């Protein structure tokens, strides 16, 4: 049985799109500003993790699609390298959210870390597959770890901001 009580009504119809687009562009600007291809925060992951806990799966899928497409268009990789993992993960988290009894802060951090791992690994695989770039395992592992750390810290910092913004 799939019995879920969604609380979509609390989230404003424009706020969720606005926040995703805003944070996606912030991520793009950070990438251009610092010019470092690997060590940069992906602010779309925290907002998607947060929204997947309060939105229906079919809504979160399209939000992930918007965020992922923006990241893909403004990045150097193929379109889909961000979008597809983000869509899948946010749908999974949104679907299993009622299994999770307590939504404490470390749950969000762990979920962000898991998402960050998957997105980073997908990016590495796609890069190596399409661009014939074979990443050195140690460096790839280091990049992934740093991305996990950065994204988790941002999740931790932004959690209260999201709660205040969406009036949860």
């Amino acid at each position, binding site marked *: 049985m*799939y019995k879920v009580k969604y609380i979509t009504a609390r989230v404003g119809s424009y706020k969720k799109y606005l926040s995703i687009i805003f944070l996606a562009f912030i991520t793009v600007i950070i990438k251009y*500003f610092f010019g470092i291809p690997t060590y940069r925060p992906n602010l779309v992951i925290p907002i998607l993790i947060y929204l997947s806990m309060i939105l229906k*799966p*079919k809504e979160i899928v399209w939000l992930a699609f918007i965020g992922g497409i923006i990241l893909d268009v403004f990045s150097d990789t*193929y*379109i*889909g390298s961000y979008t597809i993992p983000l*869509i899948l993960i946010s*749908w999974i988290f949104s679907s299993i959210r009622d299994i999770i009894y307590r939504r404490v802060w470390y749950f969000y951090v762990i979920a962000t870390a898991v998402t960050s791992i998957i997105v980073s690994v997908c990016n590495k695989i796609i890069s190596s597959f399409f661009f014939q770039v074979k990443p050195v395992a140690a460096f790839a592992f280091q990049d992934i770890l740093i991305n996990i750390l950065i994204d988790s810290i941002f999740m931790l910092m932004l959690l209260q901001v999201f709660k205040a913004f969406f009036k949860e």
Partner: protein
Amino acid sequence: MRLPSGFISLITAVLITLAISVLDAFDIIRLKESFMWVKKPIQKTVIFVKQIRESKDETLDAAIFQHHIIANQKTTEILEVENRELKQLLGISLTLPCELKTAVVIDRVFFEGRVMELIIDKGSSSGIDKGLCAVSGYGLVGVVYDVSSTSSRIAVLGNPAFKVSVILPKVGEAGILEADREGNLNIKFVSTYADVNIGDLVYTSGEGGIFPRGILVGRISDVEQVSTEPFLRCTVLPSTDMKKVGFVSVCIR
């Protein structure tokens, strides 16, 4: 069989993404190029912000550099003054018939705005003893009256306890130089017949054996003849400014 909630949306979104990806990969829709109008302003803004930041850094560097230059100029000025003083001191040391120990003035003792004592950084461990004569590059300073192992105290000209036998070579007169309570240096026992003028040089006479002969003491700044007194009142302006002197040489016998 009931599909999970949002499964159709998921499949649709993934398929759309794959379609866009394929179309873009084969240069059919050129999605990335079509968003260049968004990319370029972002990149230009980022470059502009970076340039502002770099220019701020450069301004800060320039300010720090300017600060260093000013500090160096001040240091150079101080070194010039010290160098001049040491050269003077070296010059006077060549004329004196004694061995000199040069020391740095580390403190001054004031009384009513006048310097009474100088404290120097050399003491008995450097061979300095009580009663020795101290000179600067500009002339006589005073006499050592207290010595510790690493420092000494000098009673300077202007200290009422300090007296020295002097001569006025121009007129061939001798006298005793001492300070009054106001700190004025007066020469006692100068004959009223002597033709003493303002600006005449005053030297040590060498009488008494403490001070070598011929050390410049100062210039006559005032001459007064009082009818009831048998001697002239000659006031002397010391050649050494005790407030500014930085190095002192002590004549070791």
